[in-house]
């Protein structure tokens, strides 16, 4: 219900690239701006931002190696700093000064993950201090879930169909989808993240529900080709 509503809103915004994804995040959540960084062994790398302040926030974290996005990734959970200008001790001193100078007053970061596959963080900022509302927080968690699937597709270079179509095709949660991703990773000698992308691409090509294809993989009724 909830994710469906977000997907409809993203579709209405007409986005098709990762850059549009950041703008959609900011608009759907009703915050000043949003940015996404991918995080690997070498640190964070800015991917997109809805405006120049959001871009600066991502850049600072890339340069300094500290900030909410890095922390959310490491903690595997959301991070909130509702008042960057307040007295919050030694938390991200370099980032804090730079973000304030760029025009941000509050920042919130949400990890982008599918189980053990963790690819980065979504960071949103507000130009006035204060917490997110419960609705904004809930929507941000859902947006992070939506964003991670789009990023996996983009990383795999397999962007078949439009964002809304792809997201709608994910369907409700089924354990088999994630079991099948793990199985395919072994069968094709790829990462589990790519296993998930390959599973989705197969379902899309065959025009079948993702959960059905996953159940076939788990039951060894089908095996994906390299």
């Amino acid at each position, binding site marked *: 219900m*909830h994710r469906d509503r977000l997907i409809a809103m993203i579709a209405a915004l007409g986005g098709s690239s990762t850059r549009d994804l950041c703008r959609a995040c900011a608009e759907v959540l009703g915050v000043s701006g949003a940015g996404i960084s991918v995080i690997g062994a070498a640190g964070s790398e800015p991917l997109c931002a809805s405006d120049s302040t959001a871009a600066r926030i991502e850049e600072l974290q890339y340069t300094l190696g500290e900030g909410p996005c890095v922390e959310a990734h490491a903690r595997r*959970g959301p991070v909130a700093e509702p008042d960057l200008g307040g007295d919050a001790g030694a938390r991200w001193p370099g980032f804090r000064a730079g973000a304030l100078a760029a025009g941000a007053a509050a920042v919130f970061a949400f990890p982008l993950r599918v189980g*053990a596959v963790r690819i980065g963080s979504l960071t949103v900022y507000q130009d006035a201090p204060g917490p*997110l509302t419960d609705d904004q*927080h809930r929507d941000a968690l859902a947006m992070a879930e939506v964003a991670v699937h789009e990023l996996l597709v983009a990383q795999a270079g397999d962007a078949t169909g439009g964002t809304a179509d792809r997201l709608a095709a994910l369907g409700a949660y089924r354990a088999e989808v994630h*079991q099948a991703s793990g199985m395919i990773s072994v069968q094709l000698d790829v990462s589990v993240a790519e296993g998930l992308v390959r599973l989705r691409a197969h379902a899309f090509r065959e025009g079948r529900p993702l959960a059905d294809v996953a159940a076939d993989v788990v039951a060894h009724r089908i095996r994906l080709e390299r």
Partner: protein
Amino acid sequence: MVVTRSERLAQTFVDLADTLVDEFDVVDLYALLAERCVELFDASQAGLLLADADGTLRLVAATNEAIELVELFQLQNDEGPCLDCYRSGEQVLVDDLGRGGTPWPLFARVAREAGFRSVNAFPLRLRDRVLGALNLFDVAPRPLDPADVAAAQAMADIASIGLLQYAALSDAQALAGQLTAALESRIAIEQAKGVIAERLGVGMDEAFDRLRRYARSHRRPLSGVAEEVVLGTLAPSDLSA
């Protein structure tokens, strides 16, 4: 020496208190709760489900991960005692699935095919919210006695409280964060099961047992071990049979 039920119950609470410190992990707490429910209430199988932001009930821990049982939990998003329990916030106790006039014909059929005759669902409540359900299955058609019903509800209440480990009671955002983290931990376990099952040529239930045994013998959280398997830093062959 015969260990009485109240002694076993007391021991369970001691063990549960143990899991609430240090490297606390909701999935480990739920796995322990499910196992103890089976022992305490002479049930055949137990599982704990949490609802995600879309209201889909998702399995977080079960005593057995055979595909037939996992399916029984999953199909309750369409119909079944867990769904009714989650929607109403009330216990749903069914002592004989074989009796006619069930409100869930599909669930009753699949459950009976899997060998179960009675089923009980207890709500995971947090004040005015329902977070999920504790589901007990038994192969015998029999009612739970009133003392067991009360104790099982206490176990479900512990599951609710466990989600609030790091959250102030009023903090909806911290609760949402914990809920998401628990569901993501569970996804990591499903991914790891897939890797292990395919690599070692075993079923999903055996894959889970190996994961769990390794985590327990090394005193590590299940989700941490699952993550290492998925990332390839722990080889499935290193999980002993």
